[in-house]
């Protein structure tokens, strides 16, 4: 089975965000970058498929030199091959999806696996966009699935329940938390991954279809009324919720 796993590099969630000099992106200096947490499920799923069906796992990312760190994590976890596709300045989700699709078409994967979202821009768009660009079926937020020959039965989380979906290989899926338990890379594998080759591929040169006009830090407009735990104050809270906020 020819398995492609797409990963992305994102700022650590707990990192402090400051707006950069351009007023449209974050100030990157001092920010700790990590492998997008959902992509760990994607890598693990790819590795488990390989263990079950044989084949190869190729980890790819669209980024720059600093993105090699996350590819090395994928290699240390057990990916066979790593590909770094160069990103263009001011690219958007569509431009990145185009780069992934252009590369993936050259290797004709049976399955492309992504994390359900990148925790930087939370767009939830990549699985559907890559599927569309490659004319492949896609299922996002898969929480469990089975492959039988070329048939796929998957469960995906929706509001108030789950959808059971059927489709067939080749296809694109995005991994929901709980799909598996990602393995931790072992120290010798981390060391070995440092010297493994990373293929460099030029990204698609398509213009972005959206642009950021401005970025700002959110203004909180919360009431900030803090009370204590006396019965009087709890009664007052209920009154405020009922009469002022009118939520009960």
């Amino acid at each position, binding site marked *: 089975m020819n398995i492609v796993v797409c990963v992305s590099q994102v*700022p650590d*969630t*707990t990192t402090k*965000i400051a707006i950069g000099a351009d007023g*449209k992106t*974050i100030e990157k200096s001092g920010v700790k970058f990590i492998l997008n947490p*959902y992509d760990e499920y994607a890598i693990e799923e790819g590795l488990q498929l390989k263990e079950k069906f044989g084949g190869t796992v190729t980890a790819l990312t669209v980024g720059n030199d600093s993105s090699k760190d996350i590819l090395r994590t994928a290699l240390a976890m057990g990916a066979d091959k790593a590909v770094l596709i160069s990103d263009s300045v001011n690219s958007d*989700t*569509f431009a990145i999806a185009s780069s992934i699709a252009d590369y993936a078409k050259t290797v004709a994967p049976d399955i492309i696996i992504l994390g359900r979202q990148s*925790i930087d*821009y*939370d*767009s*939830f*768009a990549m699985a*559907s*966009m890559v*599927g*569309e660009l490659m004319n492949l*079926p896609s*299922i*996002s*937020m898969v929480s469990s699935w089975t492959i039988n020959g070329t048939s796929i*039965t998957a469960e*995906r989380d*929706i*509001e*108030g*329940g789950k*959808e*059971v*979906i*059927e*489709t067939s290989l080749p296809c694109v899926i995005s991994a929901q938390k*709980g799909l598996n338990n990602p393995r931790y890379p072992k120290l010798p594998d981390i060391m070995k991954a440092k010297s493994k080759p990373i293929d460099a591929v030029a990204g698609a040169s398509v213009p*972005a*279809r*959206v*642009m*950021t*006009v*401005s*970025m*700002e830090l*959110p203004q909180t407009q*919360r*009431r*900030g009324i*803090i*009370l*204590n*735990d006396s*019965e009087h104050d*709890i009664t007052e*809270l*209920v009154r405020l*919720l009922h009469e002022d*906020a009118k*939520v*009960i």
Partner: protein
Amino acid sequence: MKIIVLLEPSGNSIKRSSLESITAARALGATSIHGFMYGGEASAAHIAGEYGLADIAHTPAAEYSSTAAATSLAQFAKNEAATAVIVAANATGKEIAPRVAVKLEAGYIPDCVGLALVNGSIQGTRPVYAGKARIAVSATTAMSVYALRPNVFTARKADSATSVNVRTFTPQLSESDTRVKVTNVIRNEGKLDVLEADIIVSGGRGLKGPENFHLVENLADKLSAAVGASRAVVDAGWRPHGEQVGQTGKTVSPNMYVACGISGAVQHLAGMSSSKVIVAINKDKEAPIFKVADYGIVGDVFDVLPVLSQKIAAVTGK
């Protein structure tokens, strides 16, 4: 400006998030707004008239297919020479909108919490980096597709209801359009999902153990609310993942969010900071949750929740 709004059928009506999309389109001052509904009964669309939508195209479908829905919506938008397509950023919308955008060669702006007309084009505002920043985004293309975060835009009825014309739209579908099929939907019976609730009461590590969640459930019951949970208690196995609110769980915007014994780590705030009213109960007055709270009670959940439930029951009559 011509806007197509995706209407999602729900029984004999359409989802509230679709009504929010109609209201958002009207607020932009669009001269022409058309609804598009895939699957469901044509009659379900009639409620849209109360929200000022007169023209609705309906594509009947015996079974739901995200790929076929995307192709149908894109073809309809193209036929109508629309300038924008608006969907809800829910499980359905987030799945099909990126495909629709690619088909229409349109810019896609997901998870909008604001829409504004700027120099004749629709600008979307959206949270990024776990809500620690907010960006304004515009499309560089002639057409654009927007997904609106549910329960952030308010659905408002029009001054007078419009009579609705539902016409059938028959898309040209190829075999590849129907490769993804929903064969079953498993409902969480008897349990309100945090994504569908007007009020959510969430519990965190302050509850000390799964056996104490009845305190949270009891308050939720008095408020007809859904029960939510922090990542810590889900990871500890106290509560199911479906209840998790936050970055690795669900992003919610209820009318009221009550955080009980939740410190308010940034991952949690990412999932609930767009709630309309936030109430926090925590014994640590320095807990970050108080910084985003409208109302807070500094106190132990074990002392506060029983009293609060009783006082709220007196108001709600439950």
